[in-house]
């Protein structure tokens, strides 16, 4: 009797979007704005969180994900956005209750929960960071371009593949 080996279907990766920044500081709100826009896509298997800053409890959600995409505003760097892989770290000197780095969120996920998702950081270029609400026009344009790429990646579930190639989304 012929035995046929059947490959189990590969489940879509569980993706966590962590957009962070202060909407009260204009373009610093790019991260939360991106997370909220992605949430509105209502994509299956994609969870989003918009917050002022990363928190240690984000490690809990990271540990239940296969891929974590951090989205932050960038004060400098490439336009309209940059993408870089994130490696876990526990020895992050800037740690305080108000400052948690993406590397530490990953490090905590691995150290406390024994699971290390793959991760990348998208830095959307911003220009105005004064005490005021509302994104600048240029930041809005950068956000729109970033969202097009992120949406395509998420819909195609190519995030894991892309990250394994070194984090190049473009």
């Amino acid at each position, binding site marked *: 009797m012929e035995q046929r080996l059947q490959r189990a279907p590969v489940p879509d990766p569980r993706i966590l979007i962590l957009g962070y920044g*202060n*909407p*009260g500081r204009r373009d610093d709100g790019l991260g*939360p704005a991106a997370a909220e826009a992605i949430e509105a896509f209502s994509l299956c298997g994609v969870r989003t*969180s*918009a*917050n*002022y*800053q990363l*928190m*240690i*409890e984000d*490690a*809990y959600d990271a540990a239940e994900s296969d891929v974590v995409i951090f989205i932050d505003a960038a004060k400098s760097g490439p336009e309209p956005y940059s993408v870089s892989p994130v490696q876990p770290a*526990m*020895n*992050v000197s800037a*740690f*305080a*209750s*108000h*400052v948690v780095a993406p590397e*530490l969120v990953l490090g*905590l996920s691995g*150290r*406390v929960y024994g699971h290390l998702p793959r991760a990348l950081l998208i830095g959307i270029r911003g220009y105005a960071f004064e005490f005021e609400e509302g994104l600048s026009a240029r930041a809005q344009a950068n956000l729109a371009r970033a969202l097009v790429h992120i949406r395509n990646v998420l819909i195609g579930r190519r995030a894991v593949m892309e990250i394994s190639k070194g984090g190049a989304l473009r």
Partner: protein
Amino acid sequence: MIETRKIVIDPVTRVEGHGKVTIRLNEDGSIGETRFHVVEFRGFERFIRGRPYWEVAMIVQRLCGICPVSHHLCAGKAMDKIAGVDRLTVTADKVRRIMHYGQVLQSNAVHFFHLASPDLLFGFEGPVGKRSFVGTIENYPEVAKWAIFVRKFGQSVIKAVGGKKIHPSLVIPGGVNKNLSIAERDLLRNEVDRVVAWCGDALELCKRLIHEDAARLEDFGTFESSYVSVVRSDGAMDLYGGGLRAIGPDGAKIFDGVTPEMYDDVIGDEVRPWTYMKFPYIRTLGKERGWFRVGPLAQVNCCDFIDTPLAENARVDFKRPGRGKPIHATLYQHWARVICMLHAAEKVKELLYDDDLQGDDLVTTGKRRPEGAAWIEAPRGTLYHRYRVDEDDLVTNAKLAVATTNNNEAINRSVNKVAIDYLAGHEITDVLLNNIEVAVRAYDPCLSCATHALGDMPLFVTLEASDGTTIATRARA
């Protein structure tokens, strides 16, 4: 002529905001005056003016990234008064309460696990690099697990009723804009038992750490003081609302059952030229003797009992050494804070099994008034808001008294006590630096709130002579 010298410590680590500490030495080398400075000013009370009163509960959340919910709820309670509402619907009251207990839970978890426990686990003299929450994670992963989950749960409660983490929106004048759905309730029910259990474990850990070093911890930065807290009419701890009670160092009541409208009758503000922070005092005792402490120590000292069983057992245990009198040990704030955290967890559980949270009667209306005042026991202590509005519904005057301001004199006194105990010569040693940090941190001061300023909180030390000449400085970022 008496020559004096001054030590300035600026800023303090693991305290939110930005400040510095100055210690003035007398000519003979003894400690003179101690000053806890705050160096920034934001002026929220000014730029609230001219805004419609119904916007205020949302605006004041920008005061603080750590306890925006406390400001949101306190402002909302004041706006109820302006809307002419003295009693909310049962559902609105309970939905607001569960949000508040979620806030108390997550904020006290941040303080105990992230900021205080490293000092207790690794000792005050331990290297700064190790005395951090990362050190706790590396060495006590189980404690880290409690910390992450308890805080996450508190945030989940806030999000369930407030809609989102950034600028949650729940309170409107006279009520709330949503209830807690059955689906939201059931998700939280699944986790609440674990949260209560881990808060209990944190209490046992805190007690063990304190008892292991009790002789030193009881005396560290400690002095007798009066205490002020909101208490329910029957004497129970009620962190959401009630009358204001003040007790003296011996536990005798100074005033009780005070309403927010009577605030200025019982509490005065002293202004000193060297700081933006005011110095509140109990009027009947005067500026010299009327200063007091707020926060977890006051919350536990002022109430007659706690209406949740685990926290009440913990309160009785905590108060036993005082034999009916207040506990004054400054570092026992941490112990009291964990009791309040456990109480908040029990309250959340109680409310999750209360069907009133799924009610539909959310808003009450009344006859408009020109002024509204309210308070709430925020995680750091009594928070007071008062607003006046004109005929066009625009705010014309605002007064915000936050917990860190209420503790201003007490923080200064704790730093002074530590300086007396640990300063040797004119050298700013690591031991002195560490111990001043520990003393300031016991009050969990949120300097962003107190001065209405945003910023980080590193630590500097300067030693000055009476003429302002710098003798020595040290900085720790």
